[in-house]
């Protein structure tokens, strides 16, 4: 079965794929079989590279390029991924700390009632104690996502966090708490995680002796059930009862993820509820996390990988209208990334950039390291240096805008989409060419500037600037502080922010002086004159951000050489990310000519010809029926079309009329023909059944099939 490498290469050239894998009849009816084992040369690098060359003899460099591309992808993606993980952890830090201190308190409460002796603790029946000691401290962690999948990582991280504080932690999910496996299934999962051994017997006393023997009695045992509402109710109840029986012997603390605080009451019966001593914790909102993820992965120039405007719009719509989970958003980004590396030959440079760990990105003057420069020609290297600088500026402005937009609940993803729009930038650039040159004009009015920016009214950027003009003085100086921090690396912006901050200080000093002599007059003095002054500061800030947009927020697609780092092919991403079998399989059948491109059939697949694939004929015919198709009728119309071929079709090739013609039964082997037509009908029907487009007859309707899909 194992083809030799040389064979594989020559096979490729000579044999068509339909015959190449010569799987024997026997393999086809085996539930599974080994097609081939890994070739032994895998272990050696040189040989495996040679193999890859074998694969595509025309392009010997292709194999090496693919290895490089994969390494580049891995270093870039691992960078994106770890920064996403970091920010998500940061979002959770406060809740995690809160949970940890609650765990400590609970542990103290459990152990303060006295620790049982070893013999007591490992006895298989519970010790008689006060009922309260049977209560389980239970943390209810309220998740705010619509879909549970986004929280899987959170609970994993929570486990790790508690472990790092010395707790014993086991993560259990609804997959472990099934009716089929009973309470033994959950217990086995606990034992597997705590005791680690391969245990056949599922007994809590094992857990108890493990806890005692370990000598690690200074820390609590924590059981995290991430999706309690999806667990089997009865098994979960039994599990909790069992844990509470042993609560006196093992200091166990339960943490459960819930979507509403009513969940325990809905899921568990009252006698089980009585065993719980609940506390609640609330996780960060999905929007908060989304903003953090977009910031880490798409706005800050960290990995070097960027997406184009159309891709950003697609990702945003995919998130808002279709999937709604952060997990799917991150996965979509990963697919975009992998597509970029498999398509763009220069993308491996991106890997080198990522490996440098942002060294070249520090400080105002950006430079490519010698390693990167050595591998690229000088023109490209120069272009990339400029691109990096431009991106750095762009992301600074976007973040400054976002800081302002936060006061108006602007979402970073919306802002990003607008900031990436090359049309917006181009139209602005062409307008500016006809008017004034570059340069900061803090003194001029922000209205004037905003008009020139050609902003979409009500769009996130517009909103953010508008907010800058309306902010109260205290918030404004906070905002300027954040701008100062953000622009640290870009002197052109930094200086202007500093200048504005000095102005604010001066104004504050002035108003303070005015206010100080007479406190009673303070209220009065806040109005007209002061408000006007602070308004001019706001206006100046708005002008500043507007000029920053004009001069520094150049979308990636407007920068030369962006193709190296920027993924733009939204169609590729779409098709890899979202399969649409329901639609596409029907399109395949109805518009088969697009794929087969044969000369015998009409390009317009609605004109039925005998040469068309039988299943396509059948499915096209089915379109004329209601939701039930009478098999007899269907067969007759199929036959009419097909028979047309053997008689009429021969005389007048390519005839356009699909109209039923009277069958000329002059064939000698008519019966043979009939059998073959019936066989073709059967096979086409089977194929439609495999695709799930029709449901087969049942007892109630023995003569009809049911259509399943209506319209594309």
């Amino acid at each position, binding site marked *: 079965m194992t083809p030799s490498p040389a064979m594989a290469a020559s096979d490729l050239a000579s044999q068509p794929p339909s015959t190449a894998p010569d799987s024997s009849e026997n393999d086809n009816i085996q539930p599974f079989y080994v097609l081939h084992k890994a070739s032994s040369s895998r272990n050696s690098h040189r040989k495996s590279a040679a193999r890859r060359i074998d694969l595509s003899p025309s392009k010997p460099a292709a194999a090496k390029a*693919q290895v490089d591309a994969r390494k580049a992808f891995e270093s870039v993606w691992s960078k994106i991924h770890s920064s996403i993980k970091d920010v998500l952890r940061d979002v959770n830090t406060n809740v995690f700390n809160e949970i940890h201190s609650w765990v400590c308190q609970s542990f103290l409460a459990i152990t303060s009632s006295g620790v049982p002796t070893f013999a007591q603790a490992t006895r298989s029946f519970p010790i008689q104690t006060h009922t309260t000691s049977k209560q389980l401290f239970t943390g209810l962690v309220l998740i705010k996502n619509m879909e549970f999948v986004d929280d899987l990582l959170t609970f994993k991280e929570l486990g790790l966090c508690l472990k790092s504080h010395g707790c014993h932690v086991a993560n259990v999910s609804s997959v472990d708490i099934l009716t089929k496996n009973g309470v033994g299934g959950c217990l086995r999962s606990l034992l*597997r995680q705590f005791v680690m051994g391969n245990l056949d017997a599922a007994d809590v006393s094992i857990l108890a002796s493990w806890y005692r023997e370990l000598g690690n009695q200074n820390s609590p045992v924590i059981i995290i059930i991430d999706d309690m509402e999806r667990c089997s109710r009865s098994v979960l109840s039994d599990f909790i009862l069992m844990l509470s029986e042993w609560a006196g012997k093992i200091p166990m603390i339960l943490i459960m993820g819930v979507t509403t605080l009513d969940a325990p009451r809905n899921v568990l019966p009252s006698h089980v509820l009585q065993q719980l001593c609940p506390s609640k914790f609330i996780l960060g909102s999905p929007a908060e996390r989304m903003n953090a993820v977009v910031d880490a992965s798409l706005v800050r120039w960290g990995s070097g990988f960027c997406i184009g405007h159309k891709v950003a719009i697609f990702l945003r719509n995919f998130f808002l209208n279709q999937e709604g989970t952060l997990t799917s958003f991150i996965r979509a980004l990963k697919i975009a990334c992998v597509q970029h590396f498999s398509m763009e030959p220069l993308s491996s440079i991106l890997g080198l950039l990522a490996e440098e760990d942002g060294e070249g990105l520090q400080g105002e003057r950006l430079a490519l390291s010698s390693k990167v420069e050595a591998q690229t020609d000088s023109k490209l290297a120069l272009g990339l240096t400029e691109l990096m600088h431009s991106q750095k500026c762009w992301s600074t402005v976007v973040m400054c805008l976002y800081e302002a937009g936060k006061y108006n609940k602007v979402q970073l993803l919306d802002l990003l989409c607008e900031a990436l729009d090359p049309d917006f930038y181009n139209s602005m650039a062409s307008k500016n060419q006809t008017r004034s040159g570059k340069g900061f004009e803090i003194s001029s009015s922000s209205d004037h500037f905003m008009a020139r920016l050609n902003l979409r009214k009500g769009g996130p950027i517009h909103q953010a600037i508008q907010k800058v003009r309306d902010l109260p003085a205290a918030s404004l100086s906070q905002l300027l502080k954040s701008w100062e921090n953000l622009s640290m690396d870009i002197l052109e912006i930094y200086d202007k922010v500093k200048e504005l901050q000095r102005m604010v200080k001066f104004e504050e000093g002035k108003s303070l002086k005015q206010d100080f002599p007479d406190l009673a007059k303070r209220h009065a003095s806040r109005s007209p004159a002061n408000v006007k002054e602070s308004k001019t500061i706001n206006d100046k800030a708005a002008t500043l951000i507007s000029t920053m947009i004009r001069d520094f927020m150049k979308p990636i697609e407007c920068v030369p050489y962006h193709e190296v780092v920027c993924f733009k092919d939204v169609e590729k991403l779409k098709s890899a*990310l979202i399969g649409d079998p329901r639609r*596409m399989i029907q399109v395949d059948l109805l518009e088969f000519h697009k794929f087969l491109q044969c000369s015998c059939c009409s390009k317009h697949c609605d004109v039925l010809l005998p040469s068309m694939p039988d299943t396509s004929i059948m499915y096209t015919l089915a379109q004329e029926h209601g939701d039930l198709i009478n098999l007899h009728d269907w067969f007759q119309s199929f036959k009419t079309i097909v028979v047309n071929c053997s008689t009429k079709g021969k005389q007048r090739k390519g005839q356009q009329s699909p109209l039923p013609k009277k069958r000329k039964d002059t064939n000698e082997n008519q019966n043979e023909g009939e059998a073959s037509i019936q066989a073709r009908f*059967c096979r086409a029907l089977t194929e439609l059944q495999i695709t799930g487009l029709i449901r087969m007859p049942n007892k109630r309707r023995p003569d009809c099939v049911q259509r399943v899909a209506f319209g594309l």
Partner: protein
Amino acid sequence: MEMAEGDDEEFGFSRNYFLAKELDGSGKKSTRKLSDIDLVDEQELRAAASNLEPKHAKEVRELMNSYRSLYPKWLFELRCGFGLLMYGFGSKKALIEDFASTALTEYSVVVINGYLQSINIKQVLVALAEILCDQMKNKRSNTSGNMPKGQQPFNSKSVNDLLAFLDGPQVEENDCFICIIVHNIDGPGLRDSETQQILARLASCSHIRIVASIDHVNAPLLWDKKMVHTQFNWCWYHVPTFAAYKIEGTFFPLILTNGNTTQSAKTAALVLQSLTPNAQSVFRVLAEYQLSHPDEKEFKDHELVKTRRDTDGQDCLYIPLTAEALGKLLLEIGQ
């Protein structure tokens, strides 16, 4: 703009649905029977079915060949940790196996035929674990150090342990994996949710990559978001082949036959062939017993054996085939 498009689609869909309903209720409902067709003899029909000339053979071949340019991309995505999901009309069996035989030679490849009626997923896991174990042994002996001996045989390990083994840490450069090809991951033998859960967990193992095909329009309903986004991690590929579902269709009854006895006997025989001789003889005993007690004949499905509760409340095993089919089957497996 996009929203409007979506609405249009929605509207189109419901309009089509009601049009179809209307067509149905317009009184012209055909009442003609399947039996009104002048059916040819079943044997003849089967012979004709197996001798059908494929249409567009050349174009189908060219279409399949055109996908070869995608092989390097597929390989790249597998290496980067994605799964590949192939869909579109036509059998994709040959295409995927061609991809595996030409582009995946340096990895072990295991094929699962999801179109079969029953598949023991645990056995698959055991086989995969054995292959991986061999592979790691080879690797170690090539470099240095030896494998810890005296392990429990994989056969006696639980599904969890097997999955844990397959999900072990990657030794070097993250590129040591076994590729599993699942033809018709939406097929009858794999369709239940438990198997899909195991397949999803399998797909997410560090030493496993998966290439699968689906044919059913509703196949995505088999998976929830966790499975799709964190476990299977699919890259979708629309690769219609228009190749005949030759093997995949074997297990479906031909609609234009009376009673389908030959077919059910044939498919049953196919399944039986893949069982151990011991299992075959158990089946034979059961079949002979059932034939000698012709009063028990309530058959529902195409499965081999079903349980039924008798009047005493005891479970009885029986084969859901007609006496005729069972007789034919006995003859076939008796040979």
